[in-house]
């Protein structure tokens, strides 16, 4: 009896392992086959992306699947992975087999390229520096804006608790930091003064999460801090998810965030998915896709669609998602990464070990 019990347990365990293993082999076969797929076969594509794009790509993958089936007669199954942009880039560089990467900034795609996985010139592979959609950085505050936060200089007031992720691990947080830097620069501050202001801002940070989503969760679900420095798309999503609880405050200046997409050439070659990967990314520029991007609060790059979503109301406080769906606020002065000399320089100046960001935490 007891022996039977024991062998039963072992057999169950073994059985489970074998069944699971069988599944896994199927997956592996799909992953590693080097033969280009023939028509009618299911194609598997892996898209490694950053935190806030979950909803966007969930919608886009459906659209793309239908498009590809209609155009090429093949079914594409897209597997998604989301996480902090820097972490995701590193994992791809380390052997996570992504056919395409859609990361928060060019600098992170560069990391994958530096590992020898992406051919040079990826920023000119697709239109507009390979950024099919853009975003910017805004503030999310609690309903009624109890702390009267209107611009970047309010974030360094002593009574304000700020939530922003760690720029060393989160792409979005780098944009946050650079936008703040640009504001203080516009105020005519010297570099030492800017650094001091940034230091005060980060002294107000209550929770320094490792990714944009973690930061949003801290602010929205766990009610930490008075203001969340957020991706515009994250801010609108919170507004839509929790109507009446939050307001978006559009600061006077911010930065144009250009998330970068690229085909991971080495992996796509190995999987025989180069064509479908390329199609996947270029289709992001189609009108249908641009529409989905706009619906998910990313700023579309196609002018006609962009204009369709521009709000007539340019008040700097947005208390609800506009009923007509026109959400883009143009009343904001945007700088871009070129102001900081490109990503390589921005990274070296601000985010490398011992650079500006580290210096503000030195005691």
């Amino acid at each position: 009896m007891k022996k039977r019990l024991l062998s039963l347990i072992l057999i169950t365990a073994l059985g489970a392992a074998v069944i699971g293993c069988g599944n896994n082999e199927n997956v592996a076969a799909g992953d590693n086959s080097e033969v280009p797929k023939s028509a009618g076969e299911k194609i598997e594509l892996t898209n490694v992306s950053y935190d806030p794009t979950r909803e966007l790509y969930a919608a886009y993958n459906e659209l793309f699947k239908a498009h590809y089936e209609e155009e090429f007669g093949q079914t594409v199954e897209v597997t998604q992975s989301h996480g902090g942009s820097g972490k995701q880039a590193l994992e791809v560089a380390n052997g996570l087999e992504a056919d395409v990467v859609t990361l928060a900034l060019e600098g992170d795609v560069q990391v994958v390229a530096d590992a020898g996985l992406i051919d040079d010139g990826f920023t000119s592979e697709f239109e507009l520096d390979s950024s099919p959609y853009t975003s910017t950085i805004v503030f999310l505050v609690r309903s009624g804006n109890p702390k009267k936060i209107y611009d970047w200089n309010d974030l360094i007031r002593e009574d304000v608790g700020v939530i922003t992720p760690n720029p060393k691990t989160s792409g979005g947080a780098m944009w946050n930091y650079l936008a703040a830097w640009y504001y203080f620069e516009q105020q005519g501050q010297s570099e030492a003064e800017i650094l001091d202001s940034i230091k005060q801002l980060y002294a107000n940070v209550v929770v320094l999460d490792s990714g944009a989503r973690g930061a949003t969760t801290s602010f929205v679900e766990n009610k930490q801090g008075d203001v969340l420095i957020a991706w515009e798309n994250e801010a609108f999503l919170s507004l839509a998810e929790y109507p009446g609880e939050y307001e978006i405050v559009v600061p006077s200046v911010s930065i144009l965030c250009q998330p970068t997409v690229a085909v991971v050439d080495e992996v796509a070659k190995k999987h025989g998915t180069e064509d479908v990967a390329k199609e996947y990314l270029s289709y992001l520029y189609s009108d249908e896709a641009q529409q989905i991007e706009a619906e998910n609060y990313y700023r579309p790059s196609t002018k006609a669609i962009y204009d369709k979503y521009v709000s007539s109301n340019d008040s700097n406080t947005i208390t609800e998602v506009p009923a007509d769906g026109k959400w883009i606020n143009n009343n904001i002065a945007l700088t871009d990464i070129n102001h900081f000399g490109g990503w390589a320089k921005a990274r070296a100046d601000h985010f490398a070990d011992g650079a500006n960001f580290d210096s503000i935490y030195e005691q």
Partner: protein
Amino acid sequence: MELRKENKVLKYFLITISFIFLGVFLILPLVYIVITALRDGISGYINAVSDEYAIKAALLTIQATAWAVIVNTIFGIAAAWLITKYSFKGKKLLSTFIDLPVTVSPIIAGLIYVLTFGRQSGLYPILDSYGIQIIFAVPGIVLATIFVTFPFISRELVPVLTAQGTDEEEAASLMGAGTFTIFRKVTFPHIKWALLYGVVLCTARAMGEFGAVSVLSGHLRGKTNTLPLYIELLYQGYDFTGAFAASSILVVLAVIVLILRLVIENKGNKELDLNK
């Protein structure tokens, strides 16, 4: 007798403290999970747990757990046998290495596999030419799970085998029994309850591993997302009900495992009493 009377106050004091402590630290989080999981009603709960990705994640977790149990059982028996039945140089060192994984941070556990099998490692081109993918794939998850539960089974076996001594095996051996006969007929009956207990512990811990797996999973939805990683994904996707619903699957599994443990312990104790 008098001792007991004197301690009545103390007894209830200590019991009360214990109930409060466990109530706050163990029961309250469980209650919270269940309540949040049911926030959207039963149908919301059923939808959340029967989601395609939730099921795939659960299967992957079961698979990794099963592998961890099998490997650790084989290893645990071999190692415990080796440590208790023979004396040899380096035994202390060996025991220390076996215990080490428990004290190593799960993050480091994940990291070492990334370093060993990742693209920057010397092993990568060799494995890649055979089409073997370890990290960011199922084998890596299995390895990490084995690592964090590594000593669990051998640890349960060593004290039992030490207490039992080597006399019976020596006698059997002198009478001409072979290794496996000795193990099956002499040793196994002594260790079976400890072994089962080890298996239960190993299962429990393997199901819930998060840190180590998180480092080397790649978070591929439907492929390398284990249940704990899937919960994190839902949690960060504002789907708190879904996250807690998926958590409740693990809570239920954990409770089943704990009940199994009690049953095993009771049976084991009864059998010991009979033997006496």
